[in-house]
């Protein structure tokens, strides 16, 4: 990298862009995209389910549940996602658990989702004042009714945006599947480019697809939010 000879760096473009290869591989790329979306949705569903349990565990201040939940949350939030994928794929082998690339990535992303969403949910609950609960109870509602009609709708309103962002993050993180041989979008891109040597074109196409997916998630979320929260602030 000789940047000192001459005032202007010399760019050598000994490269002709070949987009046809990408176009020809489009079906494969789309297959990969489907896998990406599948894992994204599943990992979010699993993540939310576990997050609810974790949040409840974290809202007590003592006990076994609290410590397990805290350990999960803190490990998920303080270690790299790639590390979590490696743990799921390689690390569990020491316990005799051999996960397929698909399951490993799903497990790792879901684990991570659960950790972050647990904190989001906990924050959402804390943000709804206790007075709301008191008001509902004093109207004669049972605890369950109060939660269902008064507290939870407000919590959902607060956590909706962070949850959407988490979903976009999950989708972007599935790209780590490439490292363990999973044929999601990044993995397929890697295979195709190693076959055709068109690294730049293929990864640019992949980048574009990820961008579109991220936008799609954000806009659908905005639509859902607008439709369901039209009535009442």
């Amino acid at each position, binding site marked *: 990298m000789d940047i000192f000879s001459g005032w202007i760096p010399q*760019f050598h473009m000994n490269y002709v862009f070949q987009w046809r290869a990408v176009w020809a591989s489009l079906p494969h790329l789309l297959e990969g995209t489907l896998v990406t979306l599948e894992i994204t949705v599943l990992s979010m569903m699993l993540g939310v389910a576990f997050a609810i349990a974790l949040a409840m565990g974290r809202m007590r201040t003592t006990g076994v549940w609290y410590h397990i939940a805290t350990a999960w949350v*803190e490990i998920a939030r303080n270690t790299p996602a790639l590390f979590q994928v490696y743990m799921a794929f390689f690390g569990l082998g020491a316990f005799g658990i051999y996960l397929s690339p698909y399951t490993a990535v799903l497990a790792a992303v879901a684990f991570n989702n659960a950790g972050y969403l647990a904190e989001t949910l906990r924050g959402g609950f804390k943000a709804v004042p206790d007075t709301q609960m008191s008001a509902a109870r004093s109207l004669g509602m049972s605890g369950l009714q109060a939660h269902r009609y008064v507290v939870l709708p407000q919590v959902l309103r607060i956590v909706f945006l962070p949850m959407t962002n988490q979903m*976009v993050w999950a989708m972007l993180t599935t790209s780590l599947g490439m490292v363990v041989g999973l044929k999601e979008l990044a993995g397929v891109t890697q295979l195709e480019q190693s076959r055709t040597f068109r690294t730049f074109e293929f990864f640019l196409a992949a980048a574009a697809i*990820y961008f579109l997916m991220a936008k799609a998630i954000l806009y659908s979320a905005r639509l859902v939010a607008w439709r369901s929260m039209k009535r009442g602030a």
Partner: protein
Amino acid sequence: MNALLNTSLTGNDMLFLLKGAAGTLALTAIAVIAGSLIGVVLGVVRAERGWLLDRVLGGLCDVLRSVPLLIQLILFNSFVSLIGFPLSAFASGAIVLSLYMAVNCAELVKAGIASVPRMTRWASRSLGMTYACDLRYIVLPIGLRTVFPSWVGLSLAIMKDSALVSVLGFFELLKSSQTLITRTQEPLLLLLIVGAFYFALSFPIARLAARFERSTLR
């Protein structure tokens, strides 16, 4: 120790891991510092220089946050080779991470500036302070302080994302551990060591930042 843990890891191996850890920290430090400096400038420009510039720059920032870092790293690396300007994995990684940091930092800075009440800025302008003085002595000190905990969170995220530079071949911590794993076939132990390292750095700093945030809620 070998007998106790029944491992074939040697002292040299640990040194190798340590070098990897140093690589991780180096990447993180460069990305955080460069990214923050660029990010502050970007954030100020976006917050203060009119909505058109904000939209345009916002669009660019948006792209960098909607494409996986993994893809960005590979794309950038292949691009610089294409144009005849190949960079080392470390350099590519540092640049991409810095830009990623800058883009996210700009969002924070923008929010921080917006959090300074208009009346406070009017007070400083009323004293005859110029726009630049207002920015330098009032807005930035207050605004940056407000977003400091988020900035810490962002820096820690960069540290964790530095692991991705391993796909470009750079021997940061995770990749170093992979090399050892292929030799010793002891994935769990090595991964636990690596995980412990990240955790040991990230957890206390995150906790401190959270405490700082609670204490400055004046």
